[in-house]
């Protein structure tokens, strides 16, 4: 179903480009229905996601253990491209997953850690505390976040670490405008 035959594809040539149009190959899956026949796929999916939520803490623990292991390897044996990539991917996965798993503050800290790894000109020169504070914060948020009163503390911790990391990155990138521009640019993800 996904592909039209060649005869259905219309190509118009212009001086610098071609515009290619074709009948929508997915048109058959869109149906007009009466309001009474509308179901609620989004609500159904949210319910299914809620059904998975019992596993989120264990998934999150797996993710933070991976991050921790990646950093231990670097602390013991220094940075290599592979170890740097593993640390970045572990942090990047937490950045993407943690909010879905119910740990938004951990996502914020992981994002800050990703920015350090991505934009520090020399990772060997980054103060070790900057890494350990981020990683310890993520571990603490995941292990302590079951208590309601710790949620605002987690969010505050996340904000402060981001500020420290941003100040550091702005300083070490003061002569690298292309990095500075990215560091200072707003995220496309709307704020909470």
């Amino acid at each position, binding site marked *: *179903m*996904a*592909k*039209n035959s060649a005869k259905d594809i219309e190509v*118009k040539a*212009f*001086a*610098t*480009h*071609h*515009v*290619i*149009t*074709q009948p*929508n*190959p*997915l*048109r*058959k*899956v*869109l*149906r*007009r*229905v*009466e*309001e009474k*026949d*509308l*179901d609620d*796929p*989004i609500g*159904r*999916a*949210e319910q*299914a*996601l809620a*059904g*998975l939520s019992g596993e989120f803490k264990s*998934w999150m623990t*797996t*993710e933070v253990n991976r991050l921790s292991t990646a950093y231990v390897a670097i602390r013991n044996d220094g940075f290599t491209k592979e170890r740097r990539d593993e640390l970045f*991917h572990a942090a*990047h*996965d937490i*950045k*993407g*997953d*943690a*909010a*879905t*798993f119910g740990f*938004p503050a951990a*996502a914020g800290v992981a994002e800050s850690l*990703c920015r350090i790894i991505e934009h520090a000109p020399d990772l060997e020169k980054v103060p070790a505390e900057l890494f350990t504070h981020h990683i310890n914060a993520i571990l603490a948020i995941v292990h302590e976040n079951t208590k309601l009163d710790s949620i605002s503390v987690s969010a505050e911790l996340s904000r402060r670490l981001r500020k420290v990391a941003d100040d550091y990155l702005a300083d070490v990138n003061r002569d690298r405008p292309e990095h500075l521009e*990215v560091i200072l*640019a*707003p*995220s*496309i*993800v709307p704020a909470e």
Partner: protein
Amino acid sequence: MFRIDFNKLRFLVCDDNPHMRRILRTLLHSFGAREVYEAEDGATALEMYSHYVPDIVITDWAMPIFDGLELAQMIRQPDSKGNPYAPIIMLTGHSEKRRVTVARDAGVTEFLAKPISAKGLYQRILNVVASPRPFIKTKTYFGPDRRRNTNSAYMGPERRVGEKHEVLQQPSLLDKARSTI
């Protein structure tokens, strides 16, 4: 009112993180999809793309072997024997504007920044099903039209040469259907 028959759609999901694949599978099955194929790296995804001919690809960016960006570029080969036109939804933890631009220039159809939500995913799928954009082929690009807003008054350096005919509108099914109400 419109409904997508998800049970007629075939999805290919590519993410190296098994938790995210599980979430995506759960969401797609809840929407009604039956055929959801999964790959954990770009190379496997490309192989599955040729084999299963999915209607919609949902891919992460950062992955081993080759990443989601390279996967998109390999799918968008205008002279390939496979289908270079399938909608590609990039689902990623990257959330910087420049990343959106890079993904767009690789031929990605829709960009969805994590954290994932049922609503966000559904809306991206609805967009690619109901409002496909024409494809543009230039010396350096092949993929869905990168211009979502058509401004006939624009005369800047990025304007395509071809005067008034250069931007062809493809009315969306939703707009068409609405106009008949």
